[in-house]
């Protein structure tokens, strides 16, 4: 009995719960992978799928408990310091950092990397989003992937992804975070290329991984730079160390700036910012729930998370934080313009994700890290909702994703339609939905810090966002059905397994805006909790802009559809540029095929490998053979030659004896 009590008390402690939450999905992955070859019957398959969903749900519960009990631990630690008369910390921020004591990862001279986690409000927000939305998507997938042969493999990958993502956001030091970083990249590759027999899917998976890898190069360099400057990989220690140094001015490439910039390269790769954004649209080849989870709610936000986690580091480097803001804003605008001309429903959402991520970086870039995370939080809800909704639409359309073949679906799939409307309004920024609050906060911060241009661009992008999202809504759900008779007969509403998560996410999209995330997280970023007063006219202007966007789309696509066609013809050149996604893909492809492949073939393969290295090795062989050929004369078998050698030897010996001594 006492043992049971002890066990329970140990279990429900901040030392064990986080790790339990972390390793539950990993266990799910392992079990499913091991069982997968042996599963033959439907019942077994259903059991495995249920197991996968359960692990994530349990993980969510553990993290919920952790979040609720975290402040207690921090208070306990503070008391501990008082009791032992230790000097109080400079900031009131006190994260809890449990680690696996028997698993020090690296321990060589000067470098000590324990397998440590860092628990604070920021990690709570992230982990709850990951497991919460993740669980909903697991449930949704039960319905979406019902007819797929490889269901079990799919769910095992989803669990693995959850594990890595949790590791990423809970990591206490950069190397452990990097494990998670790489791991989610791997899962992204596995899941994008899930239908690997389809060439475009396999290619998209490769593209995602490779572009990610480019960013990772910067990340690794950034980690090394940080270690070089600060002597530690621990994120808490890094932020404290950054706080202790003098802030670096614009143009000054001190240690903080260099590390921050390099790490940001990694963030660009993971979060699909210019110029490493090219993988995200192609990633839509994967199953739609995957797009919802990985490429909307969680994985792509890892870059934002990292910047936020190292907030004080960026705050102290004018150059780095300006770069973040500029890249984010430019990306937001560019992606929004590309989304205007997309015809595939998922592509629109993909570019929308890129654009919204740009908003998050814009917020971080003006110093409002909490606001950036707030937008991350709300975005997870409505973007997942939109993606899952589009999945429902695609499911109803029997696999068709081209919006030009849709129309008038609101009658046939009302529940999907209803939740989709909620999502659209949320992302457009209509109050009182979630997107309004977070977007308004971003624009307000930009204006408040005096960045007028960024604010203007952000406002324009908001208008574009509303426009293209409304366009998507109208093309898909309104107007006449353009898909043909057979498709029309096939239209049916999705099962409740899929609709349930949609409804829950819709509720979240409405309510998430009321969660005071920036205030909660201010202490993490060492910032004062009360924000600067935003201009009072801002909410109204933002809402007006959003309504304008929606109205514009309504006018163009519903009222006067031929006007849209005529405008499209007139603006053909601009349209080309947008359709070609600003030629990014072409340039990269040209570089890859011309420079890399041809260069490798001509120079490295033929020049270096075949000629030089093979030549050297063969040369050694032929030298030896030639030498042997020369020496072989002594073994001709000719008696005369042998006799000659004997004579020569005798003469030599005689000569030596006579004349050399």
């Amino acid at each position, binding site marked *: 009995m006492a043992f049971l009590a002890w066990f329970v008390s140990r279990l429900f402690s901040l030392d064990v719960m986080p790790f339990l939450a972390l390793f539950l999905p990993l266990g799910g992955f392992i079990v499913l992978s091991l069982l997968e070859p042996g599963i033959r019957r439907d019942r077994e398959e259903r059991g495995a799928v249920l197991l996968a969903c359960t692990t994530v749900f349990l993980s969510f519960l553990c993290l919920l408990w952790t979040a609720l009990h975290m402040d207690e631990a921090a208070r306990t630690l503070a008391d501990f310091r008082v009791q032992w008369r230790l000097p109080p910390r400079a900031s009131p921020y006190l994260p809890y950092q449990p680690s696996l004591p028997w698993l020090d990862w690296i321990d060589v001279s000067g470098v000590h990397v324990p397998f440590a986690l860092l628990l604070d409000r920021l990690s709570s927000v992230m982990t709850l989003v990951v497991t919460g939305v993740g669980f909903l998507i697991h449930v949704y997938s039960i319905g979406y992937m019902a007819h797929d042969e490889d269901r079990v493999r799919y769910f095992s990958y989803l669990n693995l992804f959850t594990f890595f993502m949790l590791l990423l956001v809970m990591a206490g030091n950069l190397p452990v975070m990097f494990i998670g970083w790489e791991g989610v990249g791997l899962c992204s590759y596995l899941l994008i290329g899930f239908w690997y027999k389809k060439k475009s899917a396999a290619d998209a998976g490769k593209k995602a991984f490779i572009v990610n890898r480019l960013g990772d190069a910067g990340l690794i360099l950034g980690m090394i730079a940080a270690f070089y400057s600060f002597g530690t990989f621990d994120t808490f220690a890094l932020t404290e160390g950054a706080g202790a140094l003098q802030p670096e001015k614009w143009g000054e490439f001190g240690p903080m700036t260099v590390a921050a910039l390099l790490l940001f390269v990694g963030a660009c790769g993971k979060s699909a910012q210019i110029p490493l954004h090219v993988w995200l649209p192609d990633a839509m080849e994967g199953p739609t729930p995957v797009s919802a989870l990985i490429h909307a709610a969680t994985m792509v936000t890892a870059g934002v998370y990292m910047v936020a986690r190292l907030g004080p580091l960026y705050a102290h480097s004018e150059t780095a934080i300006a770069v973040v803001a500029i890249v984010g804003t430019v990306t937001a605008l560019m992606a929004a313009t590309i989304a205007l001309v997309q015809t595939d429903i998922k592509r629109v959402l993909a570019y929308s994700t890129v654009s919204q991520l740009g908003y998050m970086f814009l917020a971080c870039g003006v110093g409002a890290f909490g606001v950036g995370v707030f937008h991350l939080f709300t975005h997870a809800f409505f973007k997942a909702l939109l993606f899952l909704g589009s999945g429902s639409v695609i499911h109803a359309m029997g696999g068709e994703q081209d919006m030009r073949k849709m129309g008038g679906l609101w009658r046939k799939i009302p529940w999907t339609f209803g939740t989709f409307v909620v999502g659209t309004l949320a992302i457009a920024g209509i109050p009182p939905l979630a997107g309004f609050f977070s977007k308004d906060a971003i624009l307000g911060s930009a204006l408040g810090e005096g960045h007028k241009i960024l604010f203007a661009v952000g406002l324009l992008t908001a208008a574009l966002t509303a426009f293209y999202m409304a366009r998507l809504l109208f093309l898909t759900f309104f107007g006449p059905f353009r898909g043909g008779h057979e498709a029309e007969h096939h239209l049916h509403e999705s099962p409740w397994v899929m609709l349930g998560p949609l409804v829950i996410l819709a509720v979240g999209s409405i309510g998430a805006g009321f969660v005071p995330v920036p205030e909660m997280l201010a202490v993490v970023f060492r910032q004062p909790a009360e924000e600067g007063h935003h201009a009072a006219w801002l909410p109204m202007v933002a809402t007006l802009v959003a309504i304008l966007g929606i109205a514009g789309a309504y006018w163009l696509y519903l009222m006067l559809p031929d006007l849209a066609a005529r405008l499209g013809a007139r603006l053909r050149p601009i349209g080309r540029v947008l359709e070609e996604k600003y030629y990014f893909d072409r340039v990269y492809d040209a570089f890859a095929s011309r420079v890399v492949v041809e260069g490798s073939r001509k120079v490295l393969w033929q020049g270096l490998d075949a000629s030089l290295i093979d030549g050297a090795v063969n040369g050694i062989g032929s030298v030896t053979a030639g030498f042997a050929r020369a020496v072989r004369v002594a073994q001709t078998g000719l008696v*005369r*030659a042998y006799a000659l050698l004997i*004579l020569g030897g*005798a*003469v030599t010996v005689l000569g030596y004896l*006579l004349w050399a001594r």
Partner: protein
Amino acid sequence: MTLDAILFYVFAAAAVGSALVVVGQRHPTYSAFALIVTLCSLSAVFGLLGSPFIAVLQVVVYAGAIMVLFLFVLMLLSVKREEPPARGAWGVKATAIGLGAVLVAQVGSVLAASARVTPAAPGFNASTGHVARLLFSPAYLYVFEATSILILAALVGAVALAKREM
């Protein structure tokens, strides 16, 4: 110049000349005859150097038995005129002649140098009796008997090697 010296140089010239014939002659049989001439000349030189026993032995054994044996074999095998040497073998030849010259120089220098140091000893009697007495003395008796066994072995070996299969 004493008579001995003159005779010596005559026979020496004969020996060298027929030796050159041995080496230069195309037909093996003529080479054999030339070699007989060389041997006989050498026999004469032996005699001039005060070794009558060996001189006679040279004629009887070498020229008389060994060369006859050679001629027997030459007749048995009906050797023809030798073909001219193969092309490209001049390298071997040149090397051989070169090395031969070097060898002459070496050997000759050694031999000549040693004899110049001290003059010949007087009182040299190499008659048959004296040689025989030394030959059968305990110093060389074992070797003498051993050579008889050697000859027996050679005899058996020659027969075994050269006989036709029955």
